């Protein structure tokens, strides 16, 4: 936000002799400063309330993770733990093989993010910058894919994975074995690319000036180098945004990994957290301890990519 004013611009003009501001000018400036201070204070107060509102659930999660069952039963509930029960963390981690689950979630989220950043950016670039016959139809198809509910895709996707030819003992017709089920293929490939990522990348590439491309072509660059060396470095906010959203989606994925695997060695963090939510009741202390740990990678990732992430959201108009 610019802070310069017409009056300040006038006094700093080089062709005017320096002069002391008159008393009325000083009064005006002080009044403006006071107004600006009041406006900023109000804005900061508003933002402070907003930030506090958003951070309270997060703090509540952390404090709940440090309370005993007896304290959790109190009404009215306490905000600060009366007794900081740090042992909730090791006990929660002992309730399921979380070291395996964390590893698996990380592998899957990292793979999905890498695949998305490479292929979705290529697809988005092609749809935005390369004219070819049927481009609009393909784009409309991708937009249409955004409207398909996840649940309606689960069974068809499961069958594709199950009958994948030449995998898991299947023959060329996909019969006789288990296909990709209970393997890393099933966990990584089906969720590797999303229509929303392609859509976002297209929108980012569309916003870049055509002159860059024309100059690059005059310099003799091929299509791939224009994509990789000219345009893609300019969409870092898009890379950060799509990368973070993809990582977050994969990290929080629960149903698909549960469906396509039978082995604990392939299960993910969210499956581990489900152990604390049984039909008979929820172990809130342990659940919040596990959830707190599960959010750490996302928080770290956001802190590192914060600058680009905010830019990306502002540019794409997403929330």
């Amino acid at each position, binding site marked *: 936000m610019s802070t310069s004013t017409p009056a300040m611009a006038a006094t700093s003009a080089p062709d005017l002799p320096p002069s002391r501001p008159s008393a009325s000018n000083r009064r005006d400036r002080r009044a403006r400063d006071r107004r600006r201070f009041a406006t900023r204070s109000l804005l900061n107060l508003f933002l402070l309330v907003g930030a506090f509102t958003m951070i309270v659930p997060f703090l509540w999660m952390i404090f709940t993770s440090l309370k005993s069952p007896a304290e959790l039963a109190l009404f009215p509930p306490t905000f600060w733990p009366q007794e900081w029960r740090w042992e909730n963390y090791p006990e929660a981690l002992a309730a399921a093989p979380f070291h395996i689950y964390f590893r698996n979630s990380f592998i899957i989220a990292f793979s999905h993010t890498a695949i998305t950043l490479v292929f979705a950016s290529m697809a988005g670039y092609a749809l935005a910058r390369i004219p070819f016959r049927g481009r609009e139809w393909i784009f409309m198809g991708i937009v249409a894919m955004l409207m398909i509910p996840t649940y309606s895709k689960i069974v068809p996707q499961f069958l594709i994975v199950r009958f994948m030819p030449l995998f898991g003992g299947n023959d060329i017709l996909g019969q006789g074995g288990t296909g990709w089920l209970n393997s890393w293929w099933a966990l990584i490939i089906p969720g590797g690319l999303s229509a929303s990522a392609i859509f976002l990348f297209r929108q980012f590439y569309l916003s870049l000036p055509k002159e860059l491309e024309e100059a690059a072509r005059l310099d003799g660059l091929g299509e791939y180098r224009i994509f990789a060396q000219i345009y893609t470095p300019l969409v870092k906010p898009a890379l950060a945004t799509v990368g973070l959203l993809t990582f977050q989606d994969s990290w929080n994925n629960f*149903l698909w990994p549960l469906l396509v695997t039978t082995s604990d060695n392939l299960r993910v963090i969210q499956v581990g957290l489900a152990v604390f939510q049984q039909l008979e009741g929820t172990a809130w202390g342990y659940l919040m301890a596990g959830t707190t740990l599960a959010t750490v990678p996302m928080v770290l990732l956001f802190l590192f990519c914060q600058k680009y992430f905010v830019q990306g959201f502002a540019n794409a108009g997403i929330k």
Partner: protein
Amino acid sequence: MSSRTSRTRRGAAGLTAALALTLGACSAGGDAGGGGDAAPGEVSGDITLLTPIYEGTEGQRLLEDELLPQFYEQYPDVTVTVDYTTYGQLNEKLTTAVASGLIPDVMMMGVGWIEGFADRGILANLSEDAGYTQADLEEDYAPQIVEAGMWEESVYALPIMLDTRVGVARMDLLAEAGYDHTPTSWEELREMAIALTERDASGTLQRTGFDIMSTDLRQGFETMFFSSGGSLFNEDFTEPTFNSPEGVETLQFLVDLVNTDGVEDIGFTSTDAEVNPLLNGRAAMGIAHNSLWTQAEEAAPDVMEHLQPFTIPGEVPGMFFGGTMASVAAGSDHPEAAQALTEFLASPDAALAANEQRGNVPALTELLDSDYVQGNVMVQFAMENLDVAQREGGPPAWLEIRGDIKPAIEAALLQQQTPQEALDTLAAGAQAAIDR
């Protein structure tokens, strides 16, 4: 660790375990032998087990380090691969398994689920394949529990554990209000609930006299409905009857408690509350799950002596039961091994261990005398009253119907519809599902 139990662990099972297994296998199956007519040494194969219980480190340790080694003692040529899931995702897991043709050899599922899967030919008929009869099973289980595993006069599943919903009173709070007994009729329940409800000067509810929000509304409604003498469906499960006069009266009773008597406000508590309000004094009475006792052990041991379970006093004593049952896939490549595992998991020692791990109610009548049951007031009360317990389910379309019940009850409680309108709409949808 979970997917395949190492055979090396089998050596850990001792003589005691083998003895327990033998006794268990003899008891649970009546005359039917494990694995059909084959001798244990002749039963073999790699089989899969899909289970929504035994999850987590504790559950897996119980199943893989204690129970399965006992099973392998008797069936050394059988190996079991376990697929752990949760009840929340069990339906999706089964649906995709059926769609893909990769159906687990042994499946555990809830009360009310058996009919639908049996009707579609997914479950093995244990009456035909293993010789189970209703009469044999009724020697070991209450009749309505046996019926929960049957479809069209045949046995398809064996009960392992039950979970119940009953009325529970905080006798210390009742005593403060001058009551020394739990309600003996709906009228008295209403009168006591009103007397026990407390609001502050601004009218904010401080304590509900009768909590119906901490339990799933469907199951809470059914608990009350059963006590009115009503049943969910007609005898051959071709028509819903929950919009009968008994059903409307039940729902009107709940609506009046909330909207006329102000006994409980919508949102006062919920199934996701950090603790049941009976444990922190925010409820004087309520409908609760039997796990309330284990929750109290952890969170509020001081109130345990004041918790008094009671059947809902209506035309008949009202108590709801659900549970977990074990069944065999009709298309199993190793049906005898699958039957043997099913029978083993339902045997007294294995079932008792599973129930103890989760704080649930054993289905086998003989386990009433076990130390676990005698040491858990809620479980003991449930087992002593299993003869009056009623279950949900009946038609094969139950899984489709049950999801609509809670919204109908909510619509009535929120006064968007009258109880009659809500239940009529619900019944129409249920009839359509049954007719499909």
